[in-house]
């Protein structure tokens, strides 16, 4: 057999299993705006959970408040599930998405 090591990059891409490609996409945690959680509370939780500076936590909180949502963390699926769970412990409306 010859040529097995010379597969065209295009063909290689086309034959790559779609599921594996999906798994490679980064996961992210999204916090959504809600009418109940206080703005100061959201900032405090983001600082406490992720160690963000007051400036960064405040910026993310304002993004949630004005745009309706913000990506507050990302990483592999296991990490973002733990992040979302901890946000749920604090009562924040957090969801998990993939790019």
């Amino acid at each position, binding site marked *: 057999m010859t040529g097995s090591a010379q597969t065209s990059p295009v063909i290689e891409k086309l034959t790559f299993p779609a599921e594996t490609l999906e798994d490679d996409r980064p996961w992210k945690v999204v916090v959504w705006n*809600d*009418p*109940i*959680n*206080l703005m*100061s*509370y959201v900032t*405090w939780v983001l600082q406490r959970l992720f160690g963000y500076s007051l400036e960064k936590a405040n910026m993310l909180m304002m993004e949630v408040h004005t745009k309706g949502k913000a990506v507050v963390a990302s990483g592999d699926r296991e990490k973002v*599930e733990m992040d*979302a*769970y901890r946000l*749920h*412990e*604090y*009562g*924040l*409306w*957090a*969801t*998990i*998405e993939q790019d």
Partner: protein
Amino acid sequence: MSSREIKRIGEDSFRLDLHPQVRQLLRDLKEMTLSHVEDNSPVARRLFPIAYQNSPEMEMDFQQLTREPLTNHHRHNLTIFERTLSKSELNQHEALAWMSALNDMRLILGTALDLSEDQVNPAEDDPNYEGYVVYNLLTYLQGVLIEEVQNDASDL
């Protein structure tokens, strides 16, 4: 002299200065909140958000993994809250349990009132007027607690 209901007085201590009627109200609210959590009531849905909006299968796995520990977490903090309701001082750990308990109460009451951001000052003839008054009290107490928890003890 400060008249704040919750005031940081040390690195690991907060003074609690609440009227007995407020303490009783909070005790009743704790009972109501815990029963909604235990009974998986629809008004407790904000305490158990959907994580995977686009994948029922992944959401089911996530719920199976997290539902019980999340329920235990809320129950644990509500229990500490009730146990410390008659105290005049809280330590940091207890203050954080209060933060969780007050937020749980607001999430459940706010959901029951179907609250939106422009509904914080209802008319006195509103059938839910008392509920809004209680909700505003919880909001005030949580706001004070957030400020005091964030207060640097070295500034005292």
